[in-house]
C-alpha cells in the first residue's frame, strides 16, 4: 500500500502551494499529481509519487553517494 514510484517533474501548474499540480514522467508514462506536500519542488526534480501525491524529493547527491560507495566496495574486492 505504501508503494511509491519515482518520476520526473516535467510541468507545474498552479500558484498556491496546496493547489499546485505537476505532470510527472514515469519513464514514458505521464500523470498529473498533487504537489501540495512539496512546495519547494521545481521542474526537472525527481520525486516519488504515492496515491496521486508527490511525497518526497529524491536527493540525487545522496542517491549517487550510496551507489558510489557500493561500486568502490566492488572495485576493492576485485583488486584483492
Amino acid at each position: 500500500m505504501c508503494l511509491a514510484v519515482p518520476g520526473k517533474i516535467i510541468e507545474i501548474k498552479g500558484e498556491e502551494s496546496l493547489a499546485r499540480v505537476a505532470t510527472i514522467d514515469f519513464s514514458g508514462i505521464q500523470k498529473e499529481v498533487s504537489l501540495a506536500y512539496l512546495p519547494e519542488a521545481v521542474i526537472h526534480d525527481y520525486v516519488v509519487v504515492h496515491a496521486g501525491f508527490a511525497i518526497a524529493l529524491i536527493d540525487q547527491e545522496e542517491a549517487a553517494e550510496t551507489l558510489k560507495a557500493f561500486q568502490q566496495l566492488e572495485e576493492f574486492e576485485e583488486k584483492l
Partner: protein
Amino acid sequence: MKFVDEYRAPLLAKQLLKNIDAITSQPWTIMEVCGGQTHSIIKHGIDQLLPDKINLIHGPGCPVCVTPLEYIDKALAIAQQPNVIFCSFGDMLRVPASHQDLLSIKAQGADIRTVYSPLDALKLAQENPNKEVVFFGVGFETTAPTVALTLYQAKQQNLKNFSVLACHVRVPPVMQALLSAEDNSVQGFLGAGHVCTIMGYHEYLPLSEQYKIPIVITGFEPVDILQGLYLCIQQLESGQHSVENQYTRLVTQQGNQPAQQLLQQVFTTVDQKWRGLGEIAQSGLAISNEYADWNAEQRFAVSDINTQEPENCRSGSILKGLSKPHDCPEFGKNCTPDHPLGATMVSSEGACAAYYHYRAHV
C-alpha cells in the same frame, strides 16, 4: 527506470550478501516492518539468499491486512445504501467482511469504484452533486496525508456530498506493542521507508533507546533491503543500538513538514483496533471534530458496528513473527488470496499472500 534499476543490480546485491555473510557470527531475528518490503523480499528471494542464521519476520505494515473486520463491515453497510458511490483503493475490494466483500456487492449492483487517489473520489463528488460519494481511507502515515488534503479541499469547497470512512494507523505504536509483548522475538527492525519520508525518524529514537534495539530506516528495492539488513546486523554483532537511515535519498530526520502539519489539522490520534493484533494505544488517526461533517461513520451512522475476528486464522501470530505462513494448516487450502480467511492473506503485501504467490511449493 531511473532510481529503480540501479537498486536492483545483481552485482551490488551479490556484494552485499557476501558482506552480510562475512559479519554474521550468530543467529539474529530481524523484522521488516512494511508490507512493501515483505513483498520485495519474497519476490526477489532475499530471505533464501541470506545466511541461515538470519531469520526475517514479516511485520504488520500492510494496511489492508490490519484493517479490522468491522471497518470492512462498515464499508459494506455504507456501500449498500442507495444513492452512494463508494470509492476505494483496489486492494480493499476483495477483503472479506463478515459475510461478503465489496466486489460481490458491486456484482449485485452497488456503485463501487476503484480509484488511484482520494482526489479522484473528490472529483467524482464534484461531478455527481446528487450522489453521496464516500472514500474508504485506509493506510499508514504515507497514505493518511493524501486523505488529509482531500478532506481539506472538501471543506474549503464546502462539498457536502463527500465523506471519508477513515481507518488510518501509525507505525511507531505497533512497533512498541510488539517490543513490549512478553513473547517478542524481534532483535532488529528495518523501518518503513515511505512512512518515514512523511514522518521522519525522530519518533524511533526513544523506541530504539528504550528497547535497546537497532532500527534501520530502509527502502524497497533489493539493494536497499540488503544494505538495511547489513547495517542492522552490523549493529547487532557489535552490541549497538541506534536509528540508522539507509534510505537517505528520500528520508530526512524531520520528514515532510507540510504533510505532518495537515495530518495534525485533519486527524486526531486515537486508540485503534488492528486486525490480528487487537487494540493498540494511540495507534490510529481518526477524523478530527473540525472535519466531523465529512466523517462517513457519522453521516451514515455506522459507528456502532462491532465485529469479532474469526478464530481459525493465525494472522496475529504471523504478524508477531511467532509463525510462518506455511505453519498454518489452512494456508493454501481453505485460505488463498481468492478466499482469504484473514489479515495476512488479503493483500499482496501480506506475508501469507506473498508466500502463496512466490513460494507455493513450500
